[in-house]
């Protein structure tokens, strides 16, 4: 699955072994945007042994925060089931908001390997 970015949604690529998400996220309809992604991710996680996720966001709104929370929960659950899950939260050195957001999500990750990466 590959979604091109729009002015309100990020570029998203999902393969059998990796997911990449990059850009801005404040969709007109968060459910319509997030459901196919969460569904496909769950399918991929079901059959993989290891999975890597890279996120590089510039901005997301509060409705999308709930999506990311659910997204990380799916990954953490897979890690708790014994899968090897690695997550990179990339933020630009000047971007305090996205650094803080990455730290917010980091707190709930115990089983998955979660890295904050300055770019």
């Amino acid at each position, binding site marked *: 699955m590959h979604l091109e970015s729009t*002015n*309100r949604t990020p570029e998203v690529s999902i393969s059998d072994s990796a997911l990449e998400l990059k850009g801005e996220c*404040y969709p*007109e*309809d*968060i459910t319509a945007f997030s459901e196919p992604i969460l569904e496909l991710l769950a399918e991929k996680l079901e059959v993989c042994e290891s999975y890597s996720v890279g996120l590089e966001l*510039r*901005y997301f*709104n*509060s*409705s999308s*925060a*709930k999506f990311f*929370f659910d997204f990380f929960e799916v990954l953490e659950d897979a890690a708790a089931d014994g899968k090897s899950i690695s997550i990179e939260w990339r933020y630009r050195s*000047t*971007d*305090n*908001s996205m650094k*803080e957001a990455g730290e*917010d999500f980091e*707190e709930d990750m115990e089983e998955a390997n979660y890295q904050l990466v300055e770019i």
Partner: protein
Amino acid sequence: MDSHDFHKLLLSRGTFFCYSGLLSEEVLSAISGIVREQVTDIDNNEDLTTRVFGIFVEQAQNIIRYSEERLAQGGIGTVAIGHSNDGFIVEAINPMNAENVERLKKNLKDLQQMDSKDLRKAYKQRLREGPPEGSKGAGLGFIEIARKSSKFEFDFVENPDRLFVLKAWIVP
């Protein structure tokens, strides 16, 4: 008020963007790129302008979802952004139901008392617990505005309809 006085009023208070009328997700899509550009043109501090833009989106979506005066696609209200030597201000005004005033007032007063640590905790707690009853989003909008702004003020005005006014200042 004469048209030219209206023009001068906006200039005198530093309001460089103002939208008034039906706000829907479609309207927000149409104006958000322009707003982003204008804010970035005024200040090239990206951390600051992303905070301004983020608060603008939350304020606009509050009007879309909760304005008492509704059309099919959204709600009626005004959202404006101003700039002065001190920084930016994002203002939103919309009609609201009198029944919800006390609850909203308490919610916002609580947020005003919180420091950044408390706000972070409240944000995470809300994420874990999910949206409260009556919320049409994640229930995080006001916490997000409180977190990203330097300070915010609110008012409920009877004029003669009840208007909800929310002002957020963002300074470097």
